[in-house]
């Protein structure tokens, strides 16, 4: 698929074909980012399919997905490039007698000794790639500043080698769990998308697409139950879509065609990964109540 001729319909079709079920808003916003050639900044709670967008796009455009996972303390040497010091030192020790110093210096600061990290890899790629910068909110603020410099002109200067410019501007997707506010500078350069937990209807569609073996009734009840838990319980980690799917799969394995108090009890640890959350569920909601909630006619 060619990016320049891309229409909203193409994108919608591509998303559906990859099994990515989403609200119209996600499609329109992604489309805008692609057409404007700007990075797409996706925020929202964990497990709503932020990272998935990058994967789907790389599949759609049939191109490589380069991923930069952010964490505290991430810096240029891990994100952009680093000289392979160990190899260089070895070279120096080996060549101590023979070579002239200036030749030695030239040879150890050549491409052979360069460790390419994700950002440089994306810039030097022969083809337009998808660059996923995951959980940018985990990186430090300094790194963020460095990053948006790269994102604005897609060129890096390596003192020993000169300036490297991107042959193809990559498709950039940034994700954030909103653990801290991102800087205005970064936000200004991006197209912004917030993805919330899916509605009950959407979640039923997702379940049907990913776990077709689950019956219609079961999918509906599960979607409703999960939705209820998310909106009514004050817990540390709300069940994500992937947990919904895990839950559905295990219920399907148990041959359950409907939810019941008993099967809910048996499978609680799939939805609640945190001991305190499980306790909160038992205290404030309980399997019996949850079972009632998903029954037809319940308000």
């Amino acid at each position, binding site marked *: 698929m060619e990016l320049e001729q891309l229409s909203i319909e193409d994108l919608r079709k591509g998303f559906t074909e990859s099994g990515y079920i989403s609200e119209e808003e996600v499609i329109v916003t992604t489309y*805008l980012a692609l057409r*404007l050639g700007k990075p797409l900044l996706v925020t929202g709670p964990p497990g709503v399919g932020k990272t998935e967008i990058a994967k789907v796009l790389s599949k759609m455009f049939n191109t490589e997905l380069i991923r930069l996972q952010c964490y*505290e303390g991430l810096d240029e040497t891990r994100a952009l490039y680093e000289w392979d010091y*160990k190899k260089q*030192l070895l070279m120096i020790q080996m060549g101590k007698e023979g070579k002239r110093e200036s030749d030695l210096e030239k040879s150890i600061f050549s491409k052979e000794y360069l460790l390419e990290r994700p950002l440089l890899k994306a810039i030097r790629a022969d083809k337009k790639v998808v660059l996923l910068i995951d959980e940018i909110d985990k990186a430090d603020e300094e790194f963020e500043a460095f990053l948006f410099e790269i994102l604005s002109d897609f060129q890096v200067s390596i003192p020993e080698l000169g300036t490297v410019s991107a042959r193809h501007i990559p498709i950039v997707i940034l994700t954030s769990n909103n653990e801290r506010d991102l800087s205005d500078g970064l936000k*200004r350069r991006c197209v912004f998308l917030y993805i919330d937990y899916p509605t009950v209807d959407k979640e039923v569609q997702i379940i049907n697409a990913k776990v077709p073996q689950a019956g219609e009734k079961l999918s509906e009840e599960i979607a409703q139950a999960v939705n209820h838990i998310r909106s009514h319980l004050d817990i540390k980690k709300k069940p994500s879509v992937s947990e919904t799917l895990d839950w559905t799969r295990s219920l399907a394995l148990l041959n359950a065609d409907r939810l019941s108090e008993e099967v809910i009890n048996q499978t609680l640890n799939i939805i609640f990964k945190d001991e305190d959350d499980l306790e909160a569920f038992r205290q404030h909601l309980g399997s019996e109540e949850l079972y009632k909630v998903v029954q037809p006619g319940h308000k």
Partner: protein
Amino acid sequence: MDNQVKSLEEQRNTEIWDLMLKQRWARSGNYIENNLVKFVQVLRHLGIRVSSSETIDALRALELVNINNKQAVKTTLRALLSKDIEKQILFDKAFAIFFSSPEEKEQRFLEGLRRKKEQERQAKQIEQDFTFQRADTEGEAAEEVKFDLTERQKELYTKLSRDDQEKLTEFVNQVIQTHREGSFQRKISFLQNFIRGTLNYWEKQLRQNGMEEESQVAFDLDPTGDEEMDQLLEDVAEQVRASEQALLYEDMKTIGERDLPKATVIIKRLAKKLASRISRRYRRTKKSQRIEMRRSIRSNIRYGGTMLDLKYKIKKIEKPKILLVCDVSGSMSRYASFVIQFMYGLSSVVKEIESFIFSDDLERVTPYFKKQRPFEQTMFTIMNESQYWGGGTNLNKSLLTFMDKYKALLTPTTRIILVSDAKTTKPQETEKSLQEMREMVKDMIWLNTLPKGEWGSVEHLALFRKHCRMFECYTLAHLENVMKEHFLSS
């Protein structure tokens, strides 16, 4: 230097703007451009930061979608103009109002007009009700006596039944007409107190009966002078007040019992976010590192003594100490409980929190929090057990007590947070205590629950502000903002 940067930025902005004018507005039919620029202005007034380059991006983006599809336009503008999830609600409301149909616009205009007329009518009525003709001893109308009510009092007064209103004004009238003992001036001040007292009584009554559901939302926007824009902003503010997230902008004092759980959730969320921000700052050890030779040599023996793997000394990290001093007199207690709750949400990233409450005098409440009980229960116990909860205000005495008994808690790493509306007796003495405290600690922040607009009317505030950083703080949004922008920022 700063000025230079600023002027450069300004110049750049004007350049962008000029370019935009040339490129876009030169064409005929600049309907979309005009509307977009106006909408951006509305957003900026609502506190959403939108840069010129983002505006241009939005314009480019609008060319890519079907602008007859309102939902698509909304998605587009949101993706390019509103990038702060906390402020999404403001964007949504502003969009709904700005891009509403002509019929809706007219409807709103008429509604606004009606509201204004109604307000004027009520204001007139109140003025009439509280203007009395004082007859002299012969029974001739001799003098006009007028009482000025505050906005809040006026609001309460209009909520009373006509019957209760008349009872109040009738009584005032009777007192004015009697000509016996006492000076007239004293009588007037007695009546002012009486009116205030009565209305306060009604406020409590109304709240208890659940009549005072609609609470005051402190989401006020400064007028721009452009009538159309002002009307629009007023409508948006109105909508925000009526919405769920309004709690964030609501005067904490007026958050009703029913909304407390919701407020608790918001406080927890805000505190958690701030805590992760602070912890990040205090965990960072990369700066000003020093190499630790012994560990480095040991670890590099395997590389034949070439220093490939350096080990660093880890800088000891000092977590801040917080000292909370909260006014819990009368109406202040609600603010105090929110602020305390917020601060304890930060407990994972601070070394220790010492909490004090004061009204007539000061009491240390830290021990209550050490019992590992849920926060709500702890607060409840304090409210019940403390003799000072809900008393009068004597900041001076409270500070003296503090300096007398707890001076040892003041260290160069302590940061004091004071929560009070600063209404106190003996301001000069209070100032001295404040100064003394300030000199012994790292920072002192005063969260003033009095709206900034009223600061001018409290003379001694200027005295207090010499010794601390004072911020307006009567909504959860204020609280978050102060903590985020100013606390621990130095």
